[in-house]
C-alpha cells in the first residue's frame, strides 16, 4: 500500500505513532544533522571520555580506534536504518507490531522503554551534577548500584527530571528546535574545554601530551587497579555504543521523518564531534584534573567548571538535556502503545520522564555507562535483525512479510524465539563469563536474524 493511499491520521498529537508520516511533515536530511549533533554531543560524553583514560587506553589507540568505530556506526545508520525508515515511514514500535503482533510488541516496548529510561536517567544525573556545583552540592557515587547520593543531590535530580519530562512531552519539533539552537554552541564549548585542559596541563607538544596522558593513566590505575582497554575494544565500543539506535532500529522512529535515505548521514557530524572530539576533550579534562588536584573522580559538573567556569556548567546541563529529551521521547513512544488509543499523546512521555527521573536518583547507574550501553544494545539490537530480514528477505526467501499484520496474529512466537534465545545466550556470557557487553551485540543480532528466517521457513513448510 502506498503512502498516499493511507488515510493519515494524526495520532498522538501529530506524531503519527500508528500511521506513516505524511509527505508534508517530512524533513530534509540537513535537519537530522542538527538533531543528531545535539544528541551525540551529550552530557554523558563528559563521563564516557574520562572512562577511557581510567580504563588504561593509550592515546594513540583512542584516536584511531574511535575513528574507525565511528565510521562503522555511521555506515550502519546510512545503509541499514535509513533505507527501511524512508521506505516504511513507521515508528519502530508500529513496524514491529506488524511483524510480531501487538501483544508481543508490548513486552518488547516495556523492555525497550525501561532501558531507554535508564539511559535518560544517567543523563539527568549528569545534568544534576552541574546544577549542584553553584550550590556546593557534590556528586558522589555510592558503592551500591541502588545507593543514593545526598538528599540535596536527589532533590536536584527530581527537579531536573521533571523539567525534562515536561519539555519532552511538548513533542519532537520542540526538542528538535532546541537541539538545533544549542548544538553548534555546545560543540564549540566541548572543544574549548579540551583546549583549556591542555593549557592546564602545560602541553606544548605531542610528546608532552603523551607524557601527561600516561601519568594520568598511572594515577587512576594505581587507585583503581590495572585494567585493559585496547584498540579493538575501543573500535567495537564506539561502533556499538548506540547499537540500540542503529542495529536495533530505534532510530526508525526518528528517521521516518526523512525525505530520503541521505538522512542516514545525519548522525555523521554528531558522531565525530560528540563521540570523537568530545570524548577526547573530556578525557583531557580528567587528565588535567589529575595533574592539578590528584582527584580521579569523573564528576562532569566539576570537570567542566574547572575547565571553563560557568559556561561549562551551562554546557553540561544543556548537553544532558538535549540528549535526555529524545531518549525520553523514544521511551515515551514505547510506553504510548500501552495506553488506550484515546489516551493523551503525552501520557507515554510523561511516564517515561518519571521512570528516568527515578533512575537518575541512583548515581552509580551512570558510573556503569560503558557496560550499560553495550547491555542495552545486546538486549534491543536483535529485534532490529528481525526487522531487517523481514524487510529485505521475506519476499526473496518466500516467507510472509509483516506476518502478524497479514495473518491477523496478535502474537508471533517466531519473533519471540528469535529474540529471546540469542539474547539469553548473550546475557549468560555477559553476566556469567564477564564478557564485555558490547562484544555480544553483533553475534546476537546475526543469530536473531538467521533464527527468524529459519523459523519462518519451517513454519511455512
Amino acid at each position, binding site marked *: 500500500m502506498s503512502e498516499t493511499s493511507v488515510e493519515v491520521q494524526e495520532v498522538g498529537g501529530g506524531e503519527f505513532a500508528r500511521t506513516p508520516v505524511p509527505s508534508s511533515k517530512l524533513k530534509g536530511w540537513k535537519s537530522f544533522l542538527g538533531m543528531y549533533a545535539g544528541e551525540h554531543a551529550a552530557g554523558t560524553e563528559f563521563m564516557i571520555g574520562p572512562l577511557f583514560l581510567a580504563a588504561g587506553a593509550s592515546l594513540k589507540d583512542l584516536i584511531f580506534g574511535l575513528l574507525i568505530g565511528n565510521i562503522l556506526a555511521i555506515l550502519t545508520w546510512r545503509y541499514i536504518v535509513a533505507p527501511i525508515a524512508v521506505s516504511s515511514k513507521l515508528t519502530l514500535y508500529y513496524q514491529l507490531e506488524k511483524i510480531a503482533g501487538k501483544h508481543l510488541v508490548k513486552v518488547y516496548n516495556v523492555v525497550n522503554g525501561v532501558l531507554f529510561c535508564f539511559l535518560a536517567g544517567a543523563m539527568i544525573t549528569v545534568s544534576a551534577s552541574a546544577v549542584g556545583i553553584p550550590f556546593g552540592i557534590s556528586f558522589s557515587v555510592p558503592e551500591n548500584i541502588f545507593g543514593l547520593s545526598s538528599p540535596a543531590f536527589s532533590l536536584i535530580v527530581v527537579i531536573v527530571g521533571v523539567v525534562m519530562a515536561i519539555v519532552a512531552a511538548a513533542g519532537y519539533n520542540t526538542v528538535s528546535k532546541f537541539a538545533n539552537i544549542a548544538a553548534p*554552541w555546545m560543540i*564549540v564549548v566541548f572543544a574549548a574545554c579540551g583546549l583549556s585542559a591542555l593549557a592546564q596541563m602545560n602541553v606544548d607538544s605531542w610528546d608532552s601530551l603523551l607524557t601527561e596522558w600516561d601519568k594520568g593513566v598511572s594515577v587512576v590505575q594505581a587507585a583503581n587497579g590495572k585494567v585493559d582497554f585496547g584498540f579493538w575494544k575501543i573500535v567495537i565500543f564506539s561502533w556499538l555504543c548506540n547499537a540500540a539506535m542503529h542495529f536495533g532500529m530505534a532510530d526508525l522512529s526518528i528517521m521516518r521523518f526523512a525525505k530520503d535515505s541521505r538522512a542516514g548521514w545525519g548522525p555523521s557530524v554528531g558522531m565525530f564531534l560528540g563521540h570523537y572530539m568530545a570524548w577526547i576533550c573530556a578525557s583531557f579534562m580528567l587528565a588535567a584534573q589529575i595533574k592539578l588536584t590528584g582527584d580521579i573522580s569523573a564528576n562532569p559538573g566539576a570537570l567542566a567548571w574547572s575547565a*571553563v567556569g560557568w*559556561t561549562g556548567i551551562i554546557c553540561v546541563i544543556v548537553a544532558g538535556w538535549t540528549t535526555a529529551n529524545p531518549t525520553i521521547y523514544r521511551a515515551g513512544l514505547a510506553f504510548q502503545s500501552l495506553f488506550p488509543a484515546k489516551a493523551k499523546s503525552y501520557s507515554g512521555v510523561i511516564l517515561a520522564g518519571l521512570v528516568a527521573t527515578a533512575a537518575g536518583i541512583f548515581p552509580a547507574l551512570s558510573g556503569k555507562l560503558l557496560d550499560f550501553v553495550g547491555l542495552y544494545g545486546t538486549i534491543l539490537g536483535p529485534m532490529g535483525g528481525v526487522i531487517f530480514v523481514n524487510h529485505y528477505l521475506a519476499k526473496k526467501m518466500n516467507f510472509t512479510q509483516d506476518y502478524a499484520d497479514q495473518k491477523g496474529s496478535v502474537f508471533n512466537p517466531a519473533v519471540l524465539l528469535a529474540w529471546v534465545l540469542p539474547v539469553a545466550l548473550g546475557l549468560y556470557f555477559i553476566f556469567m563469563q564477564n564478557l564485555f557487553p558490547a562484544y555480544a551485540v553483533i553475534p546476537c543480532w546475526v543469530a536473531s536474524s538467521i533464527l527468524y528466517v529459519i523459523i519462518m521457513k519451517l513454519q511455512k513448510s
Partner: protein
Amino acid sequence: MKILKLISALAIGVLILLASILLFLGTIDASKLKMFMLIGTVLWFIATPFWLKEE
C-alpha cells in the same frame, strides 16, 4: 537578520573558540577565558533563535 547571524558567529567563533585557542597559546589567562565564554554563551542564546527560527 544578517546582524543577528554575525553576532552568533562572533559569539562562538571569537568569544569561545578563539579565546580558548588564545588561552592554549598563553596569550590570555583562564579567568579572562571564562568571562569571554560566558558573554559568548549569552549572546549566542539571545541572537540565534531569531535567525534559526526563520530558516
